[in-house]
């Protein structure tokens, strides 16, 4: 029954997404939908690390920007779209590998701090090395590609292209989660030492996970530059990394659809908030603090739990105990170090 419901929900969501440009006439909203899908790809990529590997990266905006900048600069240098995209992906994979090799010198807090520093390096290059990246002025991307002769210039056509990439990303995540590789990655998250004793190469598993995550981050970065037709250092800043991390944790980590829901929440909130006030960072910060303090398992499951708890209180049966919200999330032994 539950499984059937799940499939039905997925089918409805798919139908809604596939027909979205038809019932949302306004291209402004179609663009917001494209934005949501491309950030969902980004959040899915980060969730591989945060959710399944137990490695929290605060430098993923750096990888995102590496892909975006290499794509934009190659296009500007006169390469065609296919070559620029392929080269940008390769560059991002190499960057992810370097990133992984350095950050995996440590786990837990150390990993987080190193990724933060690595992200700042990318920001430093994008912002300060003006002769390469044009500094604060950013780089323009003059045209969108036209795969198989179909122009992506209009908002709906770009939306459909993004939707296809998004579905591919979701599918690859579903395969990844069910694969032996996905299982061994979760193993390194929960019981690193035991996995090591069982003969798994924990370092290599984590390394490959970072490169896999880097690949989809790169794809999202390329979608971003084609969507905006512009890239500036802002996107590589710590705020961006924090935003994506917020998408992952607000939707609920280590779930397939959590990051997607998180991306929707953050993108919609950002667009709504920015329309009224200029205080997006304040709102972002407050959401972080609220989530961490009151619903550590994520916005969606947290709201459900709070509602259930409130509902239970309303039923006013004092004997119906056991519905109180737990103060702490289940602790994960991810701090174990592999010798």
């Amino acid at each position, binding site marked *: 029954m539950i499984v059937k419901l799940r499939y039905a929900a997925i089918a409805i969501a798919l139908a809604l997404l596939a027909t979205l440009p038809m019932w949302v006439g306004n291209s402004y909203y179609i663009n917001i939908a494209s934005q949501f899908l491309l950030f969902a790809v980004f959040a899915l990529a980060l969730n591989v690390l945060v959710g399944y590997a137990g490695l929290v990266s605060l430098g993923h905006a750096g990888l995102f920007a590496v892909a975006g900048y290499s794509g934009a600069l190659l296009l500007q240098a006169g390469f065609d779209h296919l070559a620029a995209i392929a080269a940008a992906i390769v560059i991002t994979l190499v960057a992810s590998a370097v990133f992984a090799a350095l950050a995996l*010198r440590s786990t837990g*807090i150390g990993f987080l701090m190193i990724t933060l520093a690595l992200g700042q390096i990318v920001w430093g290059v994008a912002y*300060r090395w003006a002769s390469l990246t044009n500094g604060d002025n950013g780089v323009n991307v003059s045209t969108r590609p036209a795969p198989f002769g179909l122009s992506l210039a209009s908002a709906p056509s770009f939306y459909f292209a993004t939707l296809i990439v998004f579905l591919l990303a979701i599918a690859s995540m579903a395969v990844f989660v069910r694969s032996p590789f996905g299982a061994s990655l979760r193993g390194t998250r929960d019981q690193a030492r035991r996995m090591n004793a069982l003969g798994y190469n924990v370092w290599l598993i984590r390394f490959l996970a970072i490169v896999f995550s880097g690949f989809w981050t790169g794809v999202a970065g390329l979608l971003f530059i084609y969507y905006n037709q512009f890239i500036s250092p802002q996107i590589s800043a710590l705020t961006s990394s924090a935003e994506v991390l917020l998408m992952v944790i607000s939707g609920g980590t280590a779930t397939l659809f959590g990051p997607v829901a998180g991306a929707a929440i953050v993108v919609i909130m950002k667009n709504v908030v920015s329309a009224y006030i200029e205080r997006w960072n304040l709102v972002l910060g407050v959401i972080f603090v609220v989530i961490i303090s009151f619903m550590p398992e994520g916005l969606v499951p947290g709201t459900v739990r709070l509602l259930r708890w409130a509902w239970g209180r309303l039923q006013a049966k004092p004997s119906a105990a056991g519905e109180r919200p737990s103060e702490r999330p289940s602790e994960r032994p991810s701090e174990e170090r592999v010798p």
Partner: protein
Amino acid sequence: MMTQITSAQAAILAINSLALGGLLFLLSSGFSLIFGLMRIPNLMHGSFFMLGAYFGVTLLGWGTNFWLAAVLSGLAVAAIGGVIERLLLRRLEGQVLPQVLLTLGLAFIIADICLMVWTGDPYQPSAPSELRGAVTAFGMFFPLYRLAILGVAVVIAIALWIMVDWTRLGAMIRAGVDDPPIARVVGIKVSQLFTLIFCLGAGLAAFAGVMGAPYLSVYPGLDFEMLPLALIVVILGGAGSLLGTLVGSFIIGFLYNFGQVRFPGLAYVILFLPMLLVLVLRPQGLFGRNVA
């Protein structure tokens, strides 16, 4: 891109490097102790620096004496840090990811509140009048204020060193850094130490913010510019090691000033190179013992 440096320029750069190194030490020593003792990568640390600097700007605007402003601002931010530690961080003890995200969220909030209160305009308060000039030595001018920053940093470094290495409190801190559970078992109130260290770190960062204001000026974004520097210094020197923080601060101070002259476009990126080297060759940091 490469520019030659004359010896006179080199001397000035060296003074600037020492001054920046001193500032970085004031900023990072607290970060290092918080990280070493509490295992919290306090992503608010740059915000404490900036908040302190802004408080200093306001106090100076009211005509307060410079040193008094620096101390008052340090105390104010120490109190804020204490409240945050007691009310919010304490509830998350031992949970690394929530702690990180909480400090990150608070950093965004502080940044936006500063933008609201002090607007986006940069401030550059003038140095205290008695330190505005320059001293002449060997036929060159050395700006007095930068020497004063260095002097203050050295005094505080010595005070911290005495506190950590020679007092009972320091012994408890060291015990807490080395092995928190055992420290608890032998009767050290580690949780009170946490609050104390957090206040101390926040206060030092704010004090550094005021000290640095006439030199770096205060502007939105200063927080996330200083945070990575503190991070580099601590990864370089090793978490929880004051000596490591001192050495790391001066390495970064020199690298920044000389890098800016020789490779202007890449000065910021060069700062990260020693950190990467240390990570590859000695992940626990130059003077660190336990692996973070």
